[in-house]
């Protein structure tokens, strides 16, 4: 009862919603880049939402199921095929013994998530299965997957076909407007840089990885030179670098940073950024914390509806 990695793809890692409780000791959370996708996939599979999945980029992994497995894919559209038959994103699917899953092409997004019903039988570190690549710990042997890796998982014949509705599936695109909350050092921007921040578009440079996305735009300036002592940062924190450019911290960010924290991308919009890549563009709209919370809770409600729908389907099937 396992997944066999026939081809590893580029940077395929085991990730869940991240490792918490260790930030005080410099242990960064890691975890999936696109939490919305991961949570929808796990909900479709009736897994606990913190169940680990495989995060993949393109070219993605080629995976063999050595026993009957229920799985689902979400996030980037990578043209998944199971034994040559197309598999839709945001839907459950059933793989018989010996089936092979391949990803043929990238039509949009940067990261896809493969979840299996019941999750992976791997050992947790500090309560999480996220791979911490810097420390070489967690997930599958603390590293990206390699050809020949075998990941133990649950086998099941109990399959409920289901698809997430359009009200919950994120609308990814390459030039999103991201809503942000002003950060602790936002007030240090000059008036004209504040305008620039709100108005201009920023391009994602080639320096975009799981740690952070470096953006390029007209440089922003501070009122005064500001020497900041290292302070806390979060997934989505936008720091202003000495050259006037912004970096958005992503899932593998360090626990602290010493650059002014201009803004934070709100939770609801982080997945849109996570699915962008080099050459794509973003612009920013500053919203209130109230608005950010309202949008986050709206997604929680949608996810609850989906969870209830899955449960009802199971209950009806038993009658």
């Amino acid at each position: 009862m396992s997944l066999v990695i026939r081809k590893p793809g580029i940077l395929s890692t085991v990730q869940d919603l991240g490792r918490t409780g260790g930030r005080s000791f410099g242990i960064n959370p890691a975890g999936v880049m696109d939490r919305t996708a991961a949570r929808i996939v796990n909900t479709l599979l009736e897994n606990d939402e913190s169940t680990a999945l495989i995060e993949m980029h393109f070219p993605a992994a080629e995976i063999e199921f050595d026993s009957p497995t229920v799985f689902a894919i979400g996030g980037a559209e990578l043209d998944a095929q199971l034994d040559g038959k197309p598999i839709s994103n945001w839907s459950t699917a059933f793989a018989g013994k010996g089936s092979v899953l391949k990803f043929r092409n990238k039509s949009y997004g940067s990261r896809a998530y493969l979840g299996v019903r019941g999750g992976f039988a791997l050992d947790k570190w500090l309560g999480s299965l996220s791979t911490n690549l810097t420390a070489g710990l967690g997930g599958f042997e603390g590293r990206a997957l390699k050809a020949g890796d075998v990941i133990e998982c649950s086998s099941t014949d109990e399959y409920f076909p289901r698809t997430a509705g359009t009200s919950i599936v994120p609308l990814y695109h390459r030039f999103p407007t991201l809503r942000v909350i002003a950060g602790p050092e936002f007030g240090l921007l000059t008036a004209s840089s504040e305008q620039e921040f709100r108005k201009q578009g920023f391009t994602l440079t080639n320096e975009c990885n799981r740690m952070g996305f470096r953006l390029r735009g007209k440089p922003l300036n501070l009122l005064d030179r500001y020497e900041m002592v290292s302070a806390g940062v979060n997934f989505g924190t936008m720091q202003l670098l000495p050259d006037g450019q912004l970096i958005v911290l992503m899932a593998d960010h360090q626990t602290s940073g010493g650059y002014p924290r201009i803004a934070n991308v709100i939770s609801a919009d982080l997945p849109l950024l996570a699915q962008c890549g080099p050459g794509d563009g973003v612009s920013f709209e500053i919203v209130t914390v109230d608005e950010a919370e309202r949008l986050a809770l709206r997604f929680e409600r949608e996810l609850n509806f989906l969870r209830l729908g899955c449960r009802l389907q199971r209950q009806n099937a038993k009658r």
Partner: protein
Amino acid sequence: MIDRPRISSLGDDCVTVDFGNEISIDVNSKAIALAARLNADGFEGFIEAVPAYSSVSVFFKLAEVRRSAQELETALASVTRCIDRALENLSDALTSKGRIVEIAVDFGAQAALDLEHVAEFAGISQRDVVELFTSKTYRVYMLGFLPGFTYMGEVDERIAIARRETPRTSVPKGSVGIAGRQTGIYPSQSPGGWQIIGRTNEEMFSLDREPNSLLQPGDEVRFVPMP
């Protein structure tokens, strides 16, 4: 009494409590004490409170905070209230001294990759650099960068050399480095730009220990030359 620190949002699932943008034992003690209080007795939806030099970041699960919060109250307002409560009588909880931990360091040429350079910078002998470095006790202000990496201070001004202009792509595990008035120990092999003056065999970070990290914020460290 402690003046109310500045509380600001770091996204919709974290707030940061800022006691002042400075490196001092006094301010750092407040940050450590507040984090300890919250970590010992959090609130519904609380994840963790993380101390830095002069601030604390408080992470929470937005939906859970909202579920237990008063009607129409934002999670931000609810969490801010909890932090204000934890700030009450915080001065009673301040402890300026932590545990004292001795760390044996090899200052030999094989380990001390930048010692010659530091001596040149200071215009003194390598032996005197080691003497100046080991004559002080250092406070662990915070951890960050890598699991178990400590930011300690303060290094004697005479040997407070800036980071290397070009960071090394690989600093050996256990390396003891200087960056300005800060000193730190690389818990694992990693890229890094600090000036390396020695190496310890201590396991700074180990999964076989709880907590994993040998040092904690507030600890005092003495470096002892290996015989």
